[in-house]
């Protein structure tokens, strides 16, 4: 019984413990392309610890919504980590149709981040919030259709089955769905080509500027929540493209962790070799990803072999 509980809890615990490594890996890869040594791999952890030890400054325009935003968005991210299995471990919360619950938890995260941004009364946050809701409105159907094309191949509607033990679906479906999900990962996690996380120009930011006014523990919650979201999207993409299973749980965990780090490296490569797209081109990227996801769905039906 205790073993079952531990087995189920390993997935969220792995997410909580290892998520900031991915952002460190992306930073290391970008530094390598720039000919630098870059910050240490665990720099994100040091940043979080530093932020947690600071005080807070709140704007006098803001209300309780601004104080609630980081708390609710991190809470939603923590619950979302309880839905997706890591390696061959189980999950604490699994039911048929939890795809939609996952997507809507991300929606809760986004809703509260956006209204916390609007609470500051600053035009920068308003600009970032406006772009964010537009891109995520377009990314959501793409994401759900991509997940569905994988789910239909398994066939199951539980993420535990789809990304855990299930190895169903044709290679074509998985490749197309994986590409779609990679594009959504870049869009939802504020990576180039959708948004530049390292820019200092507020007028060009999307995600970074929405959280401009937060500091201290609030900013620690937001950064940690963003790294959890990146972990979850990378896990989904890795499990879609490589639905393997090794013999023992430990080998499986190490292999999955290595694949996640490799995917983070690939994201770093994409960030280093591409420039960020013009804002009016981002919907075209998402529409292209949407077309791929519809194709993946059709391949799954067996209409086009």
């Amino acid at each position, binding site marked *: 019984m205790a073993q079952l509980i531990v087995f189920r809890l390993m997935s969220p615990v792995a997410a909580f413990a290892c998520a900031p490594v991915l952002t460190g890996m992306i930073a290391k890869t970008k530094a390598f392309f720039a000919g630098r040594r870059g910050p240490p791999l665990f720099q994100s952890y040091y940043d979080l610890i530093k932020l947690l030890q600071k005080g807070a400054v709140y704007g006098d325009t803001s209300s309780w919504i601004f104080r609630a935003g980081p708390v609710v968005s991190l809470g939603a991210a923590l619950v979302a980590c309880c839905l997706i299995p890591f390696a061959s471990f189980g999950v604490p*919360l699994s039911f048929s149709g939890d795809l939609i619950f996952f997507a809507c938890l991300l929606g809760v995260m986004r809703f509260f981040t956006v209204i916390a941004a609007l609470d500051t009364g600053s035009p920068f946050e308003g600009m970032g919030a406006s772009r964010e809701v537009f891109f995520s409105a377009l990314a959501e159907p793409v994401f759900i259709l991509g997940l569905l094309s994988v789910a239909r191949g398994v066939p199951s509607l539980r993420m535990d089955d789809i990304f855990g033990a299930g190895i169903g679906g044709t290679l074509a479906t998985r490749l197309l769905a994986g590409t779609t999900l990679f594009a959504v990962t870049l869009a939802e996690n504020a990576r180039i080509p959708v948004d530049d996380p390292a820019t200092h120009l507020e007028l060009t930011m999307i995600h970074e500027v929405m959280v401009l006014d937060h500091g201290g523990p609030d900013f620690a919650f937001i950064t940690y929540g963003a790294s959890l979201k990146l972990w979850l999207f990378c896990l989904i993409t890795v499990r879609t493209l490589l639905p393997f299973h090794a013999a023992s749980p430990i080998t499986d965990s190490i292999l999955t962790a290595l694949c996640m780090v490799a995917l983070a490296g690939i994201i770093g490569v994409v960030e280093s070799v591409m420039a960020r797209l013009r804002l009016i081109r981002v919907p075209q990227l998402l529409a292209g990803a949407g077309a791929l996801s519809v194709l993946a769905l059709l391949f799954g039906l067996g209409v086009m072999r």
Partner: protein
Amino acid sequence: MKLFLMLCIFAPAAVSTATIPLRARPNLQRFAGVVVALAASIAGLWTAACTLVTGDILTFHAGWTMPAGSFSLSLDGLSAVFLIPLFILSAAGAVYALEYMKESASGRNQGFAWAYYNILVSSMALVVTASNGFLFLIAWEIMSVSSFACVLHNHEQTESREAAWIYLVATHIGTAFLLVFFLFAGARCGSLDFSAFARHGFSPHASSFLFIAGLVGFGSKAGFVPFHVWLPRAHPVAPSHVSALMSGIMIKMGIYGLMRSMVMLGHFQPWWGYLLVSIGCVSGIAGVLLALGQHDLKRLLAYHSVENIGIIALGVGAGALGVSYGIPSLAVLGFCGALLHVVNHALFKGLLFLSAGSVLHAAKTARIDALGGLIKKMPATAMGFLVGSIAICGLPPLNGFISEFLVYLAGFTGLSSSSVPVFGMSAALVGSLALIGGLAAACFTKAFGTVFLGEPRSNTKSPRESGPFMRAPMYGLGAICLIIGLFFGPLSHFLAVPAGLLASVPSAQAAHEIFRVTPSLAGISYGSMLLAAAVAALFLARKALLSKRPVTTSSTWGCGYGAPTPRMQYTASSFAQPVISFFGRVLGVKPDESGPESPFPAPWKFHSHVPDLFLDNVYIPAFKAVDKGLSRLRWLQGGKVHRYVLYIAVTLIALLMWNVLWPN
């Protein structure tokens, strides 16, 4: 039980009409109006709950002196599902109106406003329980006319009169189609009773014709695109509790009529499902896109009603597809999702309209771009609007998520079927529902953020929070939304009887299908409670972290600008601009190309406007053409009485000759 039913249907109208002459005692009129509404609500909710729990059907039959039809009522599971939100909203609206209408009707006979409201409630209860076509049409007409009278409350304003006129014309065009529906069906069956319709097997052509007539007639009341044009004009000008009632439950009377006619026609054909899913996709997406472009808070909420009716149509379409292709799980899930969304939308749309009314009452304007920062002055209203926004975006842990989840599950069931049309329709359903959800989140962050957050954008006089009678209904509706969101699992089997009726399966099988979904609903409850627990834990953790550290306030960072003003904030139009310009071609938005011209430019204005394409390009030209054509016949109306007497005589002689020459 039958006494309760009679009471809840007829008491509000009777009592409020009786108080109309008491002009000198407005307090008595208000008191009587509220008390009878509350009493009828309690009686009605009790009756509807008993019907849903026991599965019995209450019937009542009486003869009357009208030339056709009979006075027969019947309350089954399907009617009970619609009675529940009706009575919750009517009670909430009545309590709200105690304070809301206090100032607006001074000097006038308030009894009329209360009477119109209570007659509207009574007529809607009668529409839902009527089981004879003639009685149904009478109740439908009373509902339309009393809502017209309610909308005309502020009849001194031109906009109010025009909106009410458009509404009156639209509802009567719909009623014309309903007349065709009932007359055709009655001619085929020989009787206008619903039970006779259900027993009679209509031929495929007849049932197709009846379906189209019913779709147009009921769809225009429900607000399907392209029949929706009256909705965004009539709902903003009505008093807010009336808007809540109209948007929450009156448009659902169209859905009720559609569902009841589908039950009566039996033998679903596949193209009904295709048509309903397509209407759902178009209404949902068009509704939310048009809502994004609105500058008036209540008109934005009215367009969102169009969107949610689209979601309900998606559920009904999925159910229809399931019945015609013989997939019981798809049918039951689709209809359950639609029925639950009827109840949920009534609750959260009512909550949103009541809070918007509170804003209008306090700030005297509903223009979004003139408001701002209201959360500090009106915290309860802001909380109500926030709860309503989270619910309407379909986010956990509230009730909007549950009904959208059921419609998604119906879509997933369709996607795993092997028939290509069902697959295609389900893919369209899932894609549109996801897009609608994303755009709705964009729209409500815009509305909530611009109206309640930030700094006030204009110098409206300092608004005060509404009184207890306006706040109590908001708290009540929000609490019900939360309860349904967290604990729907045990309540789900009450939908078995109505869903089984709609899906043409025995209610035991429907209960079995719903039972298969119960673990998912339980999982959602656990997840939502886990979310609440996580948020609470993080809040305590932050409080502990900050307890020993300095916490100060300062002004918002504006890139070092020394003198920030509230006008520098993002406006609602700017917030929605990326979405509107992306969908510009579809919406018919013409970009404002002009700009300041010379080196020393004069003052310049920018105005953004999202037109309603159907009104401008279809209805207004059509009505103008009809007007032009009919104006050629104006010579018939000479104005002289003896000419009219001549017309009567000529018509009578013609009819007599027709009767003589062709006696049959």
